[in-house]
């Protein structure tokens, strides 16, 4: 079994179990039809609706791997969405809208990264600043109202589709694959993990941890920019008050459900993306099942609790044992003989 599959196996199993559970309440859950040149079905909705959290989770995974956290991504989403809506209304065209949004996201990341890496402020405090102030900045751009636009090009990023697949889905899959390739095909992944586990030792080994930290927060801002673009394009308007509200918490949850430690170190972007899909499956599943809305949060909390307990360090070894049994244990024998010699 390839290592990647093995790493995300708990998340895949969780997702499969959740889908089975939702199917009990909503039998047509797995049905996908092709109509009007686009794929339609609850699963497609999940892949599309989960885009903002999935995008945020990509950047959040990297930040958390450095033993940081980025609470500002929701507010950054609002800023970037506002920038894109403003730019399109001001006639800068599609390229301008995307460009301004991405620049705003990178700037937000640079701000966070500088506070963390240069001034040494704890990440949770450093990013809290932008989390609180960011929405104000976004409101300043939209002048306090929902800044609507009518530009099919930009709206395409929210509601368009290519070969039947919704654009938001394509965006998060593409960005996820790109970032995963970037960190795994280069040495970035190793260096990020190293500073997350032991920043001091890594710095002594010659790693430029300051620049690397700033880059990671900028990556998070960049991902938040795309989440903001998708959210804004989706409703054809920038809602500074509500865009991305509390999504930073869902993004952190996605990373945690993806089995990544909040203490930094080893990370898997694929697992975080699956975590985001797990959260969205819960959200959409609740809506489809038709329970009264008073139950939404309770059901979500209960399911998240069950998932986290099953993945907890005290229960997870049971999964691992099953996986090891499949792999066989040639290493184990060698281990005992060599270590006995010490």
């Amino acid at each position, binding site marked *: 079994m390839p290592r990647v599959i093995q790493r995300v196996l708990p998340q895949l199993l969780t997702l499969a179990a959740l889908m089975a559970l939702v199917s009990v309440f909503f039998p047509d859950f797995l049905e996908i039809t092709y109509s009007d040149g686009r794929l339609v079905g609850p699963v497609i909705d999940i892949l599309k609706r989960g885009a903002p959290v999935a995008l945020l989770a990509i950047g959040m995974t990297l930040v958390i791997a450095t033993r940081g956290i980025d609470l500002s991504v929701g507010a950054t989403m609002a800023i970037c969405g506002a920038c894109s809506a403003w730019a399109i209304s001001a006639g800068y065209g599609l390229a301008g809208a995307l460009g301004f949004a991405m620049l705003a996201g990178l700037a937000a990341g640079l701000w966070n990264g500088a506070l963390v890496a240069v001034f040494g402020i704890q990440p949770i405090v450093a990013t809290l600043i932008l989390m609180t102030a960011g929405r104000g900045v976004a409101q300043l751009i939209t002048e306090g109202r929902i800044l609507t636009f009518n530009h099919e090009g930009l709206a395409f990023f929210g509601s368009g589709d290519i070969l039947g697949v919704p654009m938001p889905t394509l965006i998060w899959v593409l960005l996820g694959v790109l970032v995963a390739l970037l960190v795994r095909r280069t040495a970035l992944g190793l260096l990020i993990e190293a500073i997350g586990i032991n920043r001091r030792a890594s710095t002594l080994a010659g790693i430029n941890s300051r620049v690397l930290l700033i880059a990671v927060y900028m990556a998070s801002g960049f991902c938040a920019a795309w989440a903001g673009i998708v959210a804004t394009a989706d409703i054809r308007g920038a809602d500074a*008050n509500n865009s991305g509200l509390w999504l930073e918490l869902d993004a952190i949850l996605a990373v945690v459900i993806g089995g990544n430690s909040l203490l930094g170190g080893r990370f898997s972007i694929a697992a975080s993306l699956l975590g985001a899909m797990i959260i969205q499956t819960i959200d959409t599943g609740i809506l489809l099942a038709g329970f009264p809305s008073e139950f939404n949060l309770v059901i979500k909390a209960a399911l998240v609790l069950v998932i986290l307990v099953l993945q907890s360090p005290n229960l997870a070894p049971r999964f691992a044992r099953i996986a090891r049994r499949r792999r066989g244990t040639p290493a184990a024998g060698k281990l005992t003989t060599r270590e006995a010699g010490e």
Partner: protein
Amino acid sequence: MIKTLLATAAAVSFGAAAASAQTVGFSQIGSESGWRAAETTLTRQQAEERGIDLKFSDAQQRQENQISAMRSFIAQGVDAILLAPVVATGWDSVLEEAQEAEIPVVLLDRQVDSSEDLYLTAVGSDLVHEGEVAGQWLVDNVGDEECRVVELQGTTGSSPAIKRKQGFENAIEGSDNIEIVRSQTGDFTRTGGKEVMESFLQAEDGGGNICALFAHNDDMAIGAIQAMKEAGVNPGEDVKVVSIDGVPDIFRAMADGDANATVELTPNMAGPAFDALNAYWEDGTTPPKFIQTESRLYTQEDDPEAEYEARKDLGY
């Protein structure tokens, strides 16, 4: 910080009216939504039309800011105070101070838990009534046909969500052909409205089984309209859309034929308030303790384009 700037700018701008005019202090909650911004704009307009000198204070969602603003108004000896209270409790002592200084206080939009004796009157809409107007429109327009309604609720547990739902249900109670088949919260946001509507469409045969949508606010309705369009459903015709608030964008949607009706929650709370104050100043007429603003129904027949133009610059 930004709000402080706005508040400072606002504070600088008063004092332009004639010296002999009445002076009224207005403690506003803040500018958390477009509707509230419009309320502020309209209050200023109404004051200007009547030649009233309005002293404006933005509390940035904090009660202590409102209380200190009121104390400052009392110290300045204003002729009346308009208060849009951020919370319901904790107003007794400052209202008593105003009463001792013989300054009438008019509550705007929201109510307080204090004794009715402590304020002159309260101007506001009746949330249940808004729901009833929306429901009544639906009853009048579907006739005897079977009608399966989906409902987009406001934030779970909030008083507009509870009361608007109750009013709507009151209105359709006698009509057995109208039934709410799905009801979920869209958190008063466009994104929420769109996402929940998508799930309604999935669950109700791609929208084929839905006859009408009732949204607790216009923003959710606008999100839902987009969801329907993307799913190939024709909002306004296949699915009737009725919502509450009367924000400019819903008039644009009505002009485009995508929405059918909205019940206006007027941001002009100050007009009735100033009318009541004028009567009180002139001959001491005591108004009733609650002045209900009109919950006017607008449909596609009411020239939505013109309504949009009239509202778009109010700050929504």
